């Protein structure tokens, strides 16, 4: 029952726009280049680079595009084509709308639990 809940209503996030084919392609590129080795979504993944959950809304698409296109001291240039970079950015924008990480507006109860004030759920 618990597992079924997680597979269905427990993770049925209504506000998320359906994923597009371009975002799906970006998701595949994210995996093919093993981006998880260095980056995180919701704090889950590698630690070499920053968390990317809200990179689009916090830094803007041009900022993310510049890093993916040219690389940096800590990140290699993966030699992606413009279409691939667009797809990757579309995927990051898709992830961005799923929620906020790290939390910005929250309250802590006396038992130590945390409630997100602007929880999209």
């Amino acid at each position: 029952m618990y597992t079924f809940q997680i597979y269905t209503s427990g993770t049925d996030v209504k506000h998320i726009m359906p994923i597009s084919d371009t975002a799906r392609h970006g998701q595949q590129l994210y995996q093919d280049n093993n981006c998880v080795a260095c980056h995180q979504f919701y704090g889950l993944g590698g630690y070499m680079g920053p968390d990317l959950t809200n990179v689009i809304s916090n830094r803007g698409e041009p900022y993310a595009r510049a890093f993916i296109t040219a690389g940096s001291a800590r990140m290699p240039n993966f030699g992606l084509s413009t279409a691939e970079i667009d797809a990757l950015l579309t995927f990051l924008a898709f992830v961005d709308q799923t929620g906020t990480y790290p939390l910005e507006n929250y309250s802590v109860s006396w038992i130590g639990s945390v409630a997100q004030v602007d929880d999209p759920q």
Partner: protein
Amino acid sequence: MISDDPSFGGLRFMQLGMVALAIGMLFGVIGGFQFLFPEFLQELLFTKTRPMHVSMVIASIFLIAIGGIYFYLPRQCKLALFSVRAVSWHYWIFLTTGLAIIACYLSGKFGGREYFEFPPILSLPIFLSWIMFGVNYFKTVRQDKKPWPVYYWMWGTGIVFFFITYTESHLWLIPYFRDNMVREIMVQWKSYGALTGSWNMLVYGTALYIATRISGCDKYARSKLAFSLYFLGLFNLMFGWAHHTYFVPSETWIRTFAYFVSMTELYIFGKIIWDWRSSLEDWQKNRYCNAYRFLIAADIWVFVNLGLALIISVPAFNLFTHGTHITVAHAMGSTIGINMMVLLASVFYVIREELPNEVHANCSRQLRFGFWTANISLAVFFSALILAGIGKGVYDGASFQEMMTGIRPFLLAFTLSGVSMMVGFWIILWHGFRLMGKIIAPVRLSAAQAA
């Protein structure tokens, strides 16, 4: 070569596990240097070294634990293996798949999933070999008509749940899961948490088996406390994963369900070993001094990791520790301090049983040196990760590069202690590998003569 000697396969698994661990640690050290100096060994990107490190170390846990089970059942529990040949097949499938995974990593072909960064097609032989292992295990232990000791239950549960959770970790291949980012992450981390619980079942079962054998008394393996540990571990395995996902926007009750769950398992495990330790006579401690030493180290690391786990499972603290190196300290502290110490206890228990005088006569000083080097280094390593995690936890999100520069001294301490820890473990592993080879040699010879 396929030997019909029932104990041969288990020893080969353990040897391969030691090799995987030694190589996995080397890639961990390379990754540590790349963390500090991104231009270090640029041909071997961090996207390759990290999965090499993670996969090799996880493989070593499975290999040594599985090897112990394949060895203990026929050799000491006096249960004839259902199929000796299936053990060989299991070994060769594991080895061949492992080599294919390494080739994929080095050539840059990834599946890109945390923990399992290889193409998912390579999971098929892993599934196949696991089914063989499961059938072989249950068909073997069912010969024992008496009530099972707790370690049989733990091993069996670990086998079944690995199959279930490994399957679950591949649900992302189905668009229904993959297209919903929140569901995708929740199911992924649910499966990973439970998967870790499944290998903990294999490792804790091994620890209780060795403790029982060293004390020469079966009561720990049949005690209420041991079965409490088992049921609690099972509960934990199913529900204790959610502290990874407190801040993924799923239903609130799912996010907070495991708040208290994951705290209890380690405590009881620690208590059992502690009680067992105080019950031992000096001659028993001396006779199995290496296995005993590793088990006690595991027990101490249980308490250290328990303290950290308690803190990071409180959502108010998790808010600052999640996604930082404190999580890495928790993962590595548990993997190295608990799992590896227990599995090395298993290796040296086998060596003590099969070659009673070899360790004392030849390498007890080197082993002691390796043991203390590894453990002191692990303490520094663990502390450095916590300090680096605090540095990242208070990071305000402004400049990632500045934050990384700020925690650089801790990362330097982490990397250097990683080097000395690797040296300590290599000394231990070299002697373990070498001595296990001495056990295998006559078995191999007699099998060849029989052929």
